[in-house]
């Protein structure tokens, strides 16, 4: 029962996939790029799926499986992520990023932090930082750029609200933010989206924050168009 799946078909882990334009393996000019959820076996020259979802081909020779992903398979270095501090140690913090293990964040990796003036961070604070992960060592987070500037990273204000959405939706929102801009035309707000599926929002009133959260969760559940989301937002503000 091993039917080969085509592009835009639904696959389960283990399904073999027939990719449309397959250059011969020895062709040095072309290379296929396999995104998350796909695996190539050299011996049998076969592509199998490692995830659940639809097989997508966003541009020629680039393929991936589009579906809900866990943090363990989709986080990579240089991703901006949101974490919660679990423990403060002498020179570093242990941060929960929704991965198998806690990430480590050195207390010197904040803007303007020295041996004498370490930042005032403790258990429960929300961190926005850049991830360095390689699957073997403990993941590490840093809250400064190469030139020592924070650039928006660091400890986020405690008057915000943090909640989770599926990782693929978070990545979508990071790269195509029409919805977020439209919402920004309605009310002023701050938002930080982590590639590990966490969203932090802050607005002036709790009512606005609840409405924002509702709209983002609705967007996460099903991809309805922007105007419907805007009306939902207006209704939530009023009710």
């Amino acid at each position, binding site marked *: 029962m091993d039917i080969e799946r085509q592009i835009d078909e639904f696959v389960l882990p283990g399904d073999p996939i027939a990719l449309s334009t397959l250059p011969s393996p020895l062709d040095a000019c072309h290379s296929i790029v396999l995104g998350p959820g796909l695996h190539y076996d050299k011996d049998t020259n076969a592509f199998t799926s490692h995830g659940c979802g639809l097989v997508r081909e966003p541009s020629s020779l680039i393929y991936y499986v589009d579906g809900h992903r866990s943090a363990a398979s989709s986080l990579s270095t240089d991703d901006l992520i949101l974490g*919660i*501090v*679990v423990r403060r140690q002498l020179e570093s913090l242990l941060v*929960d990023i929704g991965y198998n293990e806690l990430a480590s964040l050195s207390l010197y990796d904040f803007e303007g932090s020295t041996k004498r003036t370490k930042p005032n961070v403790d*258990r*429960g*604070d*929300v961190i926005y930082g850049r991830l360095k992960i390689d699957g073997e060592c403990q993941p590490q987070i840093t809250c400064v750029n190469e030139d020592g500037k924070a650039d928006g990273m660091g400890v*986020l*204000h*405690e*008057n*915000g*609200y*943090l*909640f989770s959405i599926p990782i693929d939706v978070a990545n979508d929102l990071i790269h195509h933010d029409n919805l977020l801009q439209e919402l920004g035309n309605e009310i002023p707000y701050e938002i930080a989206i982590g590639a590990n599926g966490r969203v*932090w929002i802050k607005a002036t*009133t*709790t*009512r606005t*924050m*609840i409405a924002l*959260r*509702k709209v983002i969760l609705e967007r996460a559940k099903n991809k309805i168009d922007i105007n419907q989301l805007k009306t939902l937002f207006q209704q*939530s503000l009023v*009710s």
Partner: protein
Amino acid sequence: MASKVIGKCEEKFIIRCLRDRQRLDHRLPFVTRDIKIEFREEYGSAVVSLGLTKVLAQTCCKIVKPKETRPNEGRLRLQLKNSHNMVFNFETGRQTQWTTLMSRHLLQNIRDSGCVDMESLCILAYEHVWEISVNLHVVDYDGNILDCANLAALCALAHFRYPAVTVTGTDVHVHSLTERNPQPIRILHYPIMISFALFENGEYMLIDACEAEEKVMEGLFAIGMNQHKELSTLAMFGEISEEKVMEGLFAIGMNQHKELSTLAMFGEICLTRDQIENCISLAHNLVRDITKEMRTHNLVRDITKEMRSTLEKNREEQLQMIQAINHR
């Protein structure tokens, strides 16, 4: 509560919302989410949704020897199994503790409140009684398992039918489903649980906390009662002070007829007597509505009639098929 690290901003936000009298899904503080009860094909199988929290209940029965202390009463078993969604909210090891605690309170609420007529489950005293087992599975977790599981267990018990039995002397003959109609369990009343999530040392209370609110709550106060305002359970989790609660108990003891079957306490949140009385009257209104809904919701449907008619339909179809084959 017994959970992994929660962001400070999450706690602060929920408390700010409470102060502004708002909830994350625009509910009023003392309103439950939508309840959906779905009865499935097999007897005793029900799925109850409380908003997004879903619990599946399945019932089965078997004949066993009764307990020696109660030789003419049937037995009731209840088991609650978790979903993996909850794993993310709890530290390792605490999830099973939480589940066993809730299992215990569910069992006490349903068995010790006397809602199921145990004596009617007796077949032959000292020898054979029916043992009804209810298995509860949490299919989807969005806060407030206790209420949802309790309702699922009650619906499943109300829906369940056990085979008819004839006893001649010491011979017990169990009739199959086609020989005689199976019998429903005699349920005397429906003890429904309403949970109150407590915040800020008892100052704020919410009925039916969703997952985000449950992560942040300091204590849980659950009341089990039926529509006649008779209490079947008072359970408190988290930190509630003994003295204040004893005062509250005293007032309750005066205005109801049945004895309390459960009181469980841990730690110290103060709940004054007035607060407890308030909770009870709020819960009572909700319980009346929920019981009405349960009653009208498919329970009256005569399921055996349906089963009979499907059996007959099958027989007719088979006869037609045989005739068709013969004609060829």
